[in-house]
């Protein structure tokens, strides 16, 4: 491997005829790439608008976000340079490492008797749940792609479930329900495309519901997480005023944006403190208030472009692994975008799931860049 794909071949004067059309570096999906870049840049603007009044220096958050984006881009290029087959070969090691880290975090979390979602490594917070999204996807796809059949066998289906189930349970135990639902979505997408029978999918759904239910009943869930979910079903409960207020203001922010929005840096809710953690949890509210329906539609359009491109690459891939990877990333992205926007406009309960590419936060940004790096990797090597 290496960064050879980044080096343009010498121009012989006859065009780039020395390089094969199948050369990975000539098969980057630029539409996907540009849509992703556009979203990331838009994200920096959204983060700036939502955080500038919070800190003494209005650029504190956005500066860090730009640095995250650059770091994420580096990670993405590295992932693109690696043949996705390489991930399959090392899937076991990656998976085991992830599980070990998750175990460690779960133990630490229990010891601390609170919610611990990240390790502090110097100034950086590392969220193992983000890592797990990546490695579990690879492990599941690698495992399923070993069976070359039109429909996945029941045994392999169960094996796949266990691959996803172990990290998921550990993540639920953190407790980070949002990330756990992403893993469930991914598993459902991959298994669906792999040919799991409808009843298998159904059983995943039931199992997931049971796991989440157990988490609630077992009080693994934090009171605030519980409150967030209760808001969705019981918004007139006076005990939940604080949580209701957060969501109510998010809805107000989006709604009052109207068709064209209040304009860049305008709007009392984006500029106020009515929506806690707006920069990470409710960036869509800031978009809605400032840019209105037009801005929201543009944002959604960029996501649609990315989804369509991933879906197309899933089609184009000549091996099962590529298809499965793309399918998993497709469902993860779809779920996470829907969940984040859904909670902002109150069609879903509130979870802490960030909006990919837009929300402030290094872990999320790096994970999504890496995942799209995998998609690009599949696209680049589809003709081999």
């Amino acid at each position, binding site marked *: 491997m290496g960064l050879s794909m980044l080096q343009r071949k010498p121009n012989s004067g006859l065009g780039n005829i020395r390089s094969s059309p199948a050369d990975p570096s000539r098969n980057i999906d630029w539409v996907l790439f540009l849509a992703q870049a556009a979203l990331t840049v838009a994200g920096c603007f959204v983060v700036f608008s939502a955080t500038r009044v919070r800190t003494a220096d209005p650029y504190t958050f956005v500066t860090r976000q730009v640095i995250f984006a650059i770091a994420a881009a580096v990670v993405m290029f590295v992932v693109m340079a690696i043949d996705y087959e390489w991930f399959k070969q090392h899937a076991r090691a990656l998976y085991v490492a992830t599980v070990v880290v998750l175990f460690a975090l779960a133990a630490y979390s229990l010891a601390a008797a609170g919610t611990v979602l990240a390790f502090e490594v110097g100034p950086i917070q590392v969220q193992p749940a983000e890592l797990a999204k990546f490695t579990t996807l690879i492990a599941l796809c690698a495992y399923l792609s070993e069976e070359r059949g039109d429909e996945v066998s029941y045994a392999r289906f169960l094996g796949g479930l266990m691959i996803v189930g172990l990290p998921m349970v550990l993540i639920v135990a953190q407790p980070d329900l949002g990330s756990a639902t992403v893993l469930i979505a991914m598993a459902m997408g991959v298994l669906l495309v792999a040919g799991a029978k409808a009843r298998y999918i159904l059983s995943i759904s039931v199992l997931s519901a049971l796991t989440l239910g157990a988490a609630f009943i077992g009080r693994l869930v934090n009171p605030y997480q519980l409150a967030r979910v209760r808001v969705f079903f019981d918004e007139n409960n006076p005990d939940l005023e*604080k949580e209701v207020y957060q969501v109510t203001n998010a809805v107000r922010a*989006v*709604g009052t*944006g109207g068709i064209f929005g209040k304009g860049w840096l305008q709007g009392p809710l984006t500029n106020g403190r009515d929506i*806690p953690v707006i920069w990470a949890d409710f960036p869509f509210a800031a978009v809605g208030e400032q840019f209105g329906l037009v801005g929201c539609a543009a944002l*959604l359009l960029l996501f649609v472009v990315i989804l369509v491109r991933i*879906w197309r690459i899933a089609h184009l891939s000549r091996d099962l692994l590529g298809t499965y990877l793309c399918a998993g990333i497709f469902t993860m992205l779809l779920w996470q975008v*829907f969940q984040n926007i859904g909670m902002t406009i109150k069609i879903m309960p509130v979870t802490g799931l960030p909006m990919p590419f837009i929300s402030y936060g290094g872990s999320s940004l790096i994970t999504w860049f890496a995942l799209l790096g995998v998609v690009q990797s599949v696209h680049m090597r589809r003709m081999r």
Partner: protein
Amino acid sequence: MAADKRAARLGVLALVAALLFGVVGVRLWFLQTVQADSLQQTVDARKTKVVPLVPERGRIFDADGRIVAGNERVLTAAVDWDVISRDTDRAELFTRLSGWLEVPVDEMEARYDAGVYSRYLPLPLKEGVSEDVAIAIGERGEDFPGVSIVEGWRRVYPYAPLASHVVGYMGAITAEDQQHYQDLGYDTSVEGEKVGRSGVELSMEETLHGKWGQAVYEVDANNRIVREISFEAPVNGMDVQLSIDLDLQQYAERLLQTQLRLKRLPGFAVPNPEVEKPDGTRGPLDPTKAVGQRVPYKAPAGSVIVMNNQTGQISAMASYPTFDNRWFDSGVGSAKFDQIFPRQGPNGEELDPDLSALTNRAIQGQYNMGSSFKPFTAYAALATGRLGPNTTYNDQGTYKLTSIADDVCAQGVRCVFRNSTCPNPPGEPCRYGTVNVTTALAVSSDTFFYKLGEEFYNTPGTQLQDNVRLFGFGADTGIDLPFEFDGRVPTDELKAQLVEDSVLAQGETKNLQPGDLLQMAIGQGLMAATPLQLAVGYSALANGGHVMTPRVVQAIYAPETPDGLPGFADLTQATLVQSIAPITRDIPMSPELRDPIDAGLRRNILGPGTNDHSTTAEELFADYPAGAIPVAGKTGTAQGRGNYPWNDSSAFAAYSEDPEQPYTVVSYLEKSGFGSTGAAPVVKCMFLALSGITPLDPVVVSEPLDTTSEVPAESLPNVGTECMASTNAGTIRPQD
């Protein structure tokens, strides 16, 4: 592998995606078009928080700039109610705060449950938080959601209990006052708003108060301030300078207390005299006691006033018993407070008025002034031509009414009025022989004035009353202190009212009788005045007919006068807003009117007497140094209940004859004996102090109030009694 099947499955994914995006799109459309306007309305009506900003109350300085009423900045840690509505949140927050505030969690919980704190203002958790802790909590806003440091002021009286009656004290707005203060533009909804309840704190309330400001903030769900919507800064109150000189005030208070203590000593006790009863037999005056049994004076209360008779400014105003005005903000419970300031006697009976410490007797004592009132009767007689300076009268000790027929007198109506008794011969009234107005004042002949009283009675109209009213008797002096009593000038209407109110016996005639005018002429009977009214009257005699409105406030300064030496404000840096100008009302006072009276008052001090009788103050002032302020004055002895000598109250009023040091000094001591032995020594000592002959102790800032104390004010140290020389009971002639 069947690519078409895989494609079909991917199609399912696309379908799901399309579905979810469709849902989002529809919802967005609905929110951003249909609901946009109604949501905008709810945003406009978002939560705000109004924080009242307290002004610093103006301070009160004495004549030298001493801060007699100041303010101490108090920081209070308070928490928004919303933040602690949940038990778990509250417990967590209180636990975190407990160490910082050094308040046990239980105590904070107790405040939460107390039910006495306003739900609209943050719950105060600790008063008097240190600056360091306040800053630390401010910096850790994220750790202490909803916790704020509220800045306030606490009134302090560094020199208390000096001049407590004048300075006054603060208290909450009562239900009765609420409308009044609302009309003045006060926001009576502000919890803990205190206003002056007495003294200058009350009379200058509007000047001192300042104006509340307010900040309106937009708040988030946690009631945390999001941003400021509007800010109106508070306007601090203006500073007030008194004319009271605290050095002199301290001396006056100590002197008053010293003299009252002295008068209670057994050595001053007076014997129960033997008198002739109406039935002709002789017996003890007080039938419960044997003839000659000595009864000590109660000497429970009194007052001293030092007034500048050119400006009306009061330099000292002492009232005994006094109180410490810090009790009102001492934090003692109401049970303890009621014990210190009882509203009724120990058995639920009406409180002995002698004990009421809060009464400022200088302006609220409504007394018979006795003979010290005689100069005003003399003025009325001279002004109405009833008397010339040399009109004489032969005083043979008794005066018999001429306007009542002998047969009526024989039926028991009192027609014969006597001078007070002289020791030689025993039991007989003093006989002063031929007196004119000057000598009558000097030796205090009652019969001379009885005769004038009857003449006024026989003259149509109310000449006597009208003329004494010119001096301000019977009406408020207009001093800038609250709750002044207006005294009494006898009229038919007043008497009828008093009979109706059962103040006088039911059998009393409802209109004035000759006896009433006789009594009035010597300052007894229905005639009553406050010591301050007497001071204003004497000042008008002193300054040639200018009736001054007395003042305790001399100047108003712009807010925030800087501090000077410890305990002082730097008045050189102060911005004068208003200098209180003297208010005078002129009355006729030609030399023909004034000179005979002035001569009589001077002779009362200096002597000589007449017909072998010395004047009433002569002996006391015998050692009065030549370098001291020359004075003219008059003693007064007001008879008390049962005419028992131990119930006599003592009055003395005097003014300076030196226009460079234009002081009028009045003292009145309740149940303390003759004017010459009770009040006169106090006035004499005050003049010696004013002359600079008696050195004044410097005033020092007081120790903090001892809340374990059980008296309204701690006893003061005694002053030297040298200036009271000859106040020995044995050598004093029983004369008024």
